[in-house]
């Protein structure tokens, strides 16, 4: 694979990476007035402004967390602009205007044709009839009563649902970045699955038009009523660039009785250059509440981007017999740092959780798994199984595991397994001696390593993610 693609993946995409000073930008800095301006510009109801203000006031009393195993210069929160009017990106008239190298990357990744256009900033209706595709999806969803729209639309059209659930899983007091997000969040996604409805397709943020520019403080809320089922896909494998260095999203999931939510993420934010300059700080709070009896929430994540990742998709297992799952592959290369894992909080009886975490470190990167399994006093018969495997590529990277176990019920069963392995010279030579090129060997070893997680990804996502790992590790061995 060529150095061209390597460069492309690791360097800013020139067409999308510039800041135009628009007239509709709030000056840098954060105070109550800024929060009010954001809310006013979005024409929000009073209760939402109140939510933002409460969050802002609380945020002011908080300090930035320093416990993660990551290092970065202190962020000046007064040096950030917290609002810019979402305006349509400059669109290109056809695929011919798109950088051919970017198209080749899509080719390598196997990104579907209609997505390529959207990702490259081409007006999709010019090239494909994607708008009608989107409309068809929307109609199909509406037929069964599913609401899938931008967060702003939800505030406008379904305020009672937003009001009921916003902040119910991740309260505005939860942590520094969640509080910040609650005060200044820009936009995001909203999804509501009514009682007994099984969503007929995987919901992908791609199909949510009009909200492509969700900004740096994204907010997602997904609710599955009794017996509802949904599989939600976030992100994409193509490299994503943003002028905003700090990203602090909040995702809240709520599953009622017998409901099931499956949330899959493939994250490939710009990671900075090979020297570690630039790159996105991704400080995300993701949490699911298994509120009902026998409910299930499953997180699957493939984290390959960002300069710094700070992220613990978690499950609160409140309903009896509820199930939480976390399947994760985190890959770091060059100077990337990741401190990621999960929290499984068992409250209800016979609750079960399963954690499979696979960390891959290459280059000079540092990759930490941090996971909490907490069994409450009333969680009779609770069970957890955790498996944390790390793989090192080269001698200069680091892998760390920080498991926290808090068990307050003696009928609980908690298992933790961990392993560390290294792609060794002898392994690679074994492959060479059978005619297999080193890059293919690494990809085969890595694919074997992540298989337990990738089987939980939707099929086409898994295929892309497999190629993505290969691309991200190019040149890191041999």
């Amino acid at each position, binding site marked *: 694979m060529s150095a061209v693609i390597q460069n492309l993946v690791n360097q800013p995409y020139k067409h999308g990476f510039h800041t135009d000073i628009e007239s509709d930008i709030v000056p840098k800095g954060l105070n109550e007035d800024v929060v009010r301006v954001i809310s006013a510009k979005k024409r929000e109801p009073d209760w939402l402004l109140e939510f933002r203000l409460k969050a802002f006031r609380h945020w002011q009393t908080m300090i930035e967390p320093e416990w993660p195993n990551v290092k970065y210069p202190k962020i000046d929160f007064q040096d950030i602009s917290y609002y810019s009017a979402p305006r349509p990106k400059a669109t290109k008239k056809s695929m011919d205007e798109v950088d051919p190298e970017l198209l080749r990357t899509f080719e390598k990744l196997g990104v579907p044709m209609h997505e390529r256009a959207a990702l490259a900033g081409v007006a999709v209706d010019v090239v494909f009839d994607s708008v009608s595709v989107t409309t068809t999806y929307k109609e199909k969803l509406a037929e069964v009563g599913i609401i899938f729209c931008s967060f702003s639309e939800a505030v406008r059209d379904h305020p009672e649902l937003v009001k009921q659930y916003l902040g119910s899983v991740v309260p505005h007091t939860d942590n520094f970045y969640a509080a910040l997000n609650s005060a200044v969040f820009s936009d995001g996604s909203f999804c509501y699955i009514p009682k007994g409805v099984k969503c007929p397709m995987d919901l992908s943020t791609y199909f949510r038009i009009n909200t492509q520019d969700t900004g740096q403080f994204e907010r997602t809320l997904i609710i599955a009523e009794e017996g509802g089922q949904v599989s939600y896909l976030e992100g994409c494998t193509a490299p994503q660039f943003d002028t905003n260095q700090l990203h602090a999203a909040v995702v809240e999931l709520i599953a009622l009785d017998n409901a099931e939510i499956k949330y899959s993420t493939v994250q490939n934010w710009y990671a900075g250059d090979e020297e570690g300059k630039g790159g996105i700080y991704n400080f995300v709070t993701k949490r699911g509440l298994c509120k009902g009896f026998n409910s299930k929430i499953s997180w699957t994540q493939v984290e390959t981007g960002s300069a710094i990742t700070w992220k613990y998709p978690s499950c609160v297992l409140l309903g009896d017999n509820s199930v939480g799952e976390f399947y994760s592959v985190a890959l770091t290369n060059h100077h990337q740092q990741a401190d990621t894992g999960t929290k499984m909080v068992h409250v209800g009886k016979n609750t079960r959780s399963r954690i499979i975490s696979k960390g891959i470190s290459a280059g000079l990167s540092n990759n930490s798994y941090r996971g909490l399994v907490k069994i409450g006093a009333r969680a009779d018969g609770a069970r957890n199984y955790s498996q944390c495997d790390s793989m090192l590529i080269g001698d200069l990277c680091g892998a760390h595991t920080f498991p926290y176990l808090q068990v307050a019920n003696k009928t609980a069963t908690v298992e933790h397994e961990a392993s560390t392995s290294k792609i060794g010279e002898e392994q690679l030579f074994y492959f060479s*001696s059978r005619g297999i*090129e080193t890059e293919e060997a690494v990809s085969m070893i890595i694919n074997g390593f992540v298989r337990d997680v990738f089987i939980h990804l939707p099929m086409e996502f898994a295929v892309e993610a497999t190629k993505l790992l290969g691309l991200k590790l190019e040149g890191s061995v041999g």
Partner: protein
Amino acid sequence: MIKDNASEVLKVQGLTATVDNREILCGIDLSVRAGEVHAIMGPNGSGKSTFAKVLVGHPAYEVTGGMVRFDDADLLELSPEDRARRGVFLGFQYPVEVPGVTNGGFLRLAYNTVQSARGKEELDPLEFDDFIREKMELLEMDPGFLERSLNAGFSGGEKKRNEILQMALLEPRLSILDETDSGLDIDALRIVANGVNQLHTSEDAIVLVTHYQRLLNYIEPDYVHVMENGRIIKTGDKGLALQLEDRGYDWVAQEYRERAA
């Protein structure tokens, strides 16, 4: 089998090699022709395994002199991958474990890579499955082997069988089998040796690196070479192996020193 008009598969002249600046091979000469079986014997640390690894291009060793011709190619100029594709095969003494990679997947990738380099047909997973099962029967291997991780948790004997299975798949022109008999019980030894004998034709050559003469009861060598201190110090026929079994290595070394003096 020795045939006068057989083509020369491998020619080694004055080969020297070092590891960590220490000289391990001190000038090896060897000629192997199609159809022949050569045994390289010698005490521990004589350089037998190093010689085998240098021939397949192991990166830990630096070749410092001499030349190696493989058919018409300058072997030392080729990458390890190219050597394999052109038909040089090493059956490892200690095959490395690769957790997570299925044996079946690995074998198919190796087979298809080599086939494609040779301009031959590649096989899809179903075709390959039929093909490999046939080869496995030869070595009395259970098809369950294909589902397991490559060499991971294999017993010593299982690892060696898996090596010979790869030899059967890749149809090498030159097979170098490094201590293939170690770790095998007597039944497994018979099965593995039987497999090697069935694979051997007048078109390929085999170099057995071994400590003991035991293996040579099953795979009959045309030539036996004794190595010491990085050199081949004596060459004979299979009778030499029996003599070594009887008398050990010291007398050969002594004879060599006297000749040199």
